């Protein structure tokens, strides 16, 4: 029944999906945290920059961003991100695009987390004589991170699904393999079911596990 799978490397395609997800998740967590720090900081110019970035990037389709990394950055500006193979370049460009897009959502999630910390916490910390960096790293951020596990999990799952957009610039991940298989084999429903199952396996457990974690670690107020 499943002999149409022969000759296709399903594992490798889904492995690429996972790699895209993990690398982009790490990258957007870093850039998103920086953006969030800018947006809640005391310097108006940085707040303005953060707000502008988030509002602009959130409203552009990810497809436009990813295709731009390929057609704009790569073909017009010859950016290769340090690789001489087309496949590797496209993979890295896709990660770059995903990071640029996802960090806007990470930033918003973190910012809402910082807003859930009661002002009294920071006031008490300042009363003890802690400075801005200490208040941020010792008192506010730990509580903020614990309250945003849920929202960040949502961003992570959205990111997992969004990695399929990399198919638009030919990164050999699951959606591209699915397209190729459907074109070559006469097993539409079964092929779709296999890929649907693959994505359910990637997203549903993440949602359930992280949902449970977020309830566990959330600061009860």
């Amino acid at each position, binding site marked *: 029944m499943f002999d149409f799978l022969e000759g296709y490397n399903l594992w490798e395609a889904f492995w690429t999906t996972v790699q895209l997800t993990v690398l982009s998740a790490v990258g957007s967590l870093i850039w998103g945290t920086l953006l969030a720090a800018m947006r809640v900081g005391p310097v108006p110019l940085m707040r303005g920059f953060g707000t502008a970035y988030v509002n602009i990037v959130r409203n552009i389709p990810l497809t436009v961003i990813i295709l731009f990394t390929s057609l704009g950055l790569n073909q017009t500006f010859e950016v290769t991100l340090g690789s001489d193979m087309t496949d590797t370049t496209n993979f890295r460009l896709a990660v770059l695009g995903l990071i640029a897009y996802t960090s806007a959502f990470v930033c918003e999630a973190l910012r809402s987390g*910082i807003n859930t910390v009661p002002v009294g916490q920071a006031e008490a910390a300042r009363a003890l004589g802690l400075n801005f960096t200490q208040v941020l790293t010792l008192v506010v951020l730990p509580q903020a991170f614990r309250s945003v596990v849920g929202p960040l999990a949502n961003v992570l799952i959205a990111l997992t699904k969004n990695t399929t957009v990399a198919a638009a610039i030919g990164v050999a991940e699951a959606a591209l393999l699915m397209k190729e298989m459907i074109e070559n084999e006469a097993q539409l429903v079964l092929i779709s079911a296999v890929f649907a199952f693959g994505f359910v396996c990637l997203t549903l457990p993440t949602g359930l596990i992280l949902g449970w974690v977020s309830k566990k670690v959330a600061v009860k107020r």
Partner: protein
Amino acid sequence: MSSVLYDAQGPKAKRRNIVISVVFVAVLAAVLWWMYGALDEKGQLAWDLWKPFFHGEAWSTYLWPGLQNTLKAAALAMIIALPLGAVLGIARLSDHAWVRGVAGVVVEFFRSIPVLVLMIFGLALFSEYTNVSTDDRPLYAVVTGLVLYNASVLAEIVRAGILSLPRGQAEAASAIGLRKNQTMRFILLPQAVTAMLPAIVSQLVVIVKDTALGGAVLTFPDLMAAVGPMSAYYGANTLASFTVVALIFIVINFSLTSFASWLERRLRQGKKSTGAVVTADAVEELSTPGEHVEGKK
């Protein structure tokens, strides 16, 4: 002004802020200058590449037809997905376990699959089992993918909208002798529709953004797909074309986002309603498999 992180600033902090601002502007200016240099070196700033967008032809030949297709797909998807989502959402609240179960499985399944996978499936479906013409297939496929995904998200919005209403509403309805069906139709749904308007508008942004996938992968002639032929015709003005297309998307989606938050504010201030609102931000949570927005605490 005081926030969680910092107090009203004294003279020392103000001085430090100015220093940080100056450094930040310097870094930003350096990056912009470097980008300007790179653009200039590749000749991307030549007026010829940007000029087409200030004349009618680029708009009437490429951008406007593309935008029309984008909006058409988004509108169709919304119109079909809304009633479907409403049915699924109400079914998830049913008293019968099997109705609840089936609707739950459908919603969770389509929420956990990427839209692109659904679109690819749709395209193959229409080419193998129907006689939809080759020209129409991409539109059908895009709408199918968007409907399947967004109906399940809208189902969650409807569910969250109904759950956000105060319990007393349903209790009062049954106290005056309305049946379950009547309670839903006359009491809960009309209020829930108002409550979920911000979330629905905000979901429209997601739909508009997702149509771009059709242009990139399924040869659907939408706004995104206009970039290719347009930049080929106007002498490889890839960058300019992308900028204009991105700007159009930003304008559409930013107005929708602003409209959603305006609606939200208005609904919260309204004195006539029960105060139930499904916020625009909740959409992110509602599109995640396994997640639910719970009712009023």
